[in-house]
């Protein structure tokens, strides 16, 4: 029962051109993002030391990433000492293999899942399905996505593109295929929808012997994993099953509990606009008579070490997956999450995926350009990732190529296809702009022929004139006016 995948999706501009025409989607996204955006602004405004917290969050992450090898070793030793087993996965395929083998060893064919970005990133559910193992999402929004054979379109609210009546239809039509069917006469009232999900999921929580999770943080000094959530499904998955397998990106480590304190303030306010999230689960290895008997931590690299080698791009690894950048992004609001073609949509996805996956595909090469560089994302980022700076940095990689690290080795990549005409135009423009005489000639030519200019532009200019009037060229450029009125009069 595998759902859609992100493979083979079109480049961002084509996908976004489609989604901007979908009025229902635009309405759903506008309502949802504006609601969360306004609530976040209020939650953040309550703290008079927010900017200092933000600076502290950025500094802790930067320091940890600088000494990541040390803190990962410390975390591994602490988890092992507490009765857990640590596995290292260089990429998504290796992580999927490790998890599949661990589940197989239990003899189970069903696992319950806590919402996890790392497992979405590596396509774990599909890998498990290939091995005959059913992975059941238990986060409400992930459940909606899974039941609808759909893809997540938001980091925090994966079903943000769906409205209530769409959710009711999905529940009615699909719940029976996965377990307990939707109650008869289900309406689109939120309380009824939540109750239907609760009843459907309860069976799975009570039956499951194996759970798969991610983690928001790993505290290196004690080997403690932390999951923050709102619905309590995570708490069920983390405590009821016999075996717990957590897939965690290597950048999730924080050195100490004191460091964790900063992020437990930054994350809920940025993410759900709450002072504190309803459920914070923490576990350290295994404990006799309490919780899972077996605990496995799968530490996932999947392009993170390569990203760390890039002095500008590495700041993307500070991300704590709050999704504040998505909620303020005017491009995300109109294009929707699917247009970004990965588990990480929005501004953070546009700087993360071209680094984790590289820029070989047309889609990944188009992501750094999926922004007007308005800077709203940087302004709200709780760990101060300068997303516009990284976007421009990655644009250069796409159009000019250059040296990057792939699989731990330095390689030189060629410019992406499709930028040859643009490159020639940029060179010509640079030459003209570096020769004021030539610029003046071009300006005068434009001014003298201004009555002949078409109202609709040909070629690439159509992208402008299809929706926007073309400005009229004035009779005289500024520099000619200056010469005529200022310099000649003083001669």
């Amino acid at each position, binding site marked *: 029962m595998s759902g859609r995948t992100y493979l083979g999706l079109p480049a*961002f*501009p084509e996908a*976004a*051109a489609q989604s*901007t*025409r979908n009025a229902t989607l*635009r309405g759903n996204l506008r309502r949802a993002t504006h609601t969360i955006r306004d609530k976040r602004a209020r939650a953040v405004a309550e703290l008079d030391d927010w900017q200092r917290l933000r600076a502290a969050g950025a500094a802790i992450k930067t320091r940890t990433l600088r000494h990541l090898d040390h803190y990962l070793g410390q975390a591994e030793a602490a988890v092992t000492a507490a009765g857990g087993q640590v596995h290292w996965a260089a990429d998504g395929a290796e992580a999927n293999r490790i998890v599949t083998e661990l589940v197989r060893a239990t003899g189970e064919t069903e696992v319950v899942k806590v919402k996890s970005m790392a497992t979405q990133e590596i396509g774990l559910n599909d890998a498990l399905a290939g091995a005959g193992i059913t992975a059941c999402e238990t986060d409400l929004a992930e459940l909606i996505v899974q039941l609808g054979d759909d893809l997540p379109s938001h980091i925090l609210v994966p079903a943000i593109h769906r409205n209530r009546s769409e959710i009711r239809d999905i529940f009615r039509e699909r719940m029976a295929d996965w377990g307990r069917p939707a109650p008869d006469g289900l309406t689109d009232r939120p309380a009824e929808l939540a109750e239907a999900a609760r009843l459907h999921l309860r069976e799975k929580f009570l039956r499951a012997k194996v759970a798969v999770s991610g983690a928001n943080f790993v505290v290196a000094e004690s080997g403690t994993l932390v999951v923050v959530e709102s619905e309590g499904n995570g708490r069920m998955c983390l405590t009821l099953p016999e075996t717990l397998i957590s897939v965690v990106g290597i950048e999730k480590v924080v050195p100490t509990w004191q460091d964790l304190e900063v992020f437990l303030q930054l994350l809920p306010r940025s993410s759900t606009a709450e002072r504190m999230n309803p459920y914070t689960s923490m576990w350290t290895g295994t404990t006799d008579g309490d919780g899972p008997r077996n605990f496995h931590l799968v530490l996932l690299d999947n392009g993170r070490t390569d990203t760390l080698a890039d*002095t500008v791009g590495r700041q993307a690894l500070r991300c704590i997956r709050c999704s504040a950048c998505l909620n303020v992004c*005017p*491009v995300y609001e*109109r*294009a929707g999450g699917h247009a970004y073609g990965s588990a990480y949509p929005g501004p953070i996805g546009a700087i993360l995926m071209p680094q984790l996956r590289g820029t070989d595909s047309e889609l990944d090469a188009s992501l750094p*350009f*999926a*922004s*007007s*560089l*308005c*800077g*709203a994302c*940087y*302004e709200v980022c709780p760990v101060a990732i300068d997303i516009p*700076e990284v976007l*421009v940095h990655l*644009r*250069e990689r*796409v*159009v*000019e190529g250059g040296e990057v690290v792939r699989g731990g080795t330095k390689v030189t990549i060629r410019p992406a296809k499709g930028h040859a005409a*643009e*490159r020639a135009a*940029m*060179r010509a*423009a*640079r030459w003209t*702009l*570096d020769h*004021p005489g030539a*610029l003046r000639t071009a*300006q005068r030519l*434009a001014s003298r022929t201004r009555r002949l200019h078409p109202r609709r532009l040909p070629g*690439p200019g159509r*992208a*402008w004139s*299809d*929706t*926007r*009037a*073309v*400005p009229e*060229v*004035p009779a*005289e*450029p*500024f*520099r000619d*006016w*200056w*010469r005529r009125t*200022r310099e000649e009069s003083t001669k």
Partner: protein
Amino acid sequence: MRVALFVTCVNDTLFPRTGRAVVTLLERLGVEVDFPQAQTCCGQPQFNTGYRHETEPLVRRYATAFDGYDFVVTPSGSCAAMVRDNYPRIGAKAAAEGRGAELAEAAARAVPKTYELTEFLVDVLEVVDVGAYYPHTVTYHPTCHGLRLLGLGDRPRRLLEHVRGLELRELPGAEECCGFGGTFALKNAAVSAAMGADKARSITATGADAVCTVDNSCLMHIGGTLTRLGSTVRPVHIAEILASTERTREVAR
């Protein structure tokens, strides 16, 4: 105090009226302003599209063109932000690539003297009442680079509030990007147009006669969208409002 105008390539070629307005305004305030002919473009379109190396000669050109001036005033938030934020980055990257400190030094010469027009008026000249008269209802759209990169804050608003005859109308969702974004407007035309249409609708809803910003590039996108949507709201650069008085022709507009 030697003051130079950096008019910007967009204003020079398409909106000379804005450049003339800056000259009129500054001279009225007793500032002698010069226009060095060696200036062209700050390099923002190239840099923001990923062509950093094509931008480098323009960094040098800017620094050299304005050597010897104490202040460079520009009627563009995004061009001022380009110089202030990105010239030092271009210099640092060139140095990191083993090409010496020459570009970093050019950036260091350019950055401290570069001021966006409303910054220059409020921070350097310390005026908010420039003696302007503009008898129209106006709404103000804070452009992204002015708002978030330069941190212009309430400077443009304070200047507008002191213009005689001007009635300022609040713009709903003012801090949302208009969707221009330089080459973004062409590379992601559908999203850019959708953002522009939403902005145009917010502007029209204010009932204002005119919409003003500190940047003609955003205004070109906003104005072009308004025209296509059949709106009669006029796009006006803030410099033209501040330059107009009871005696100037521009008031009639």
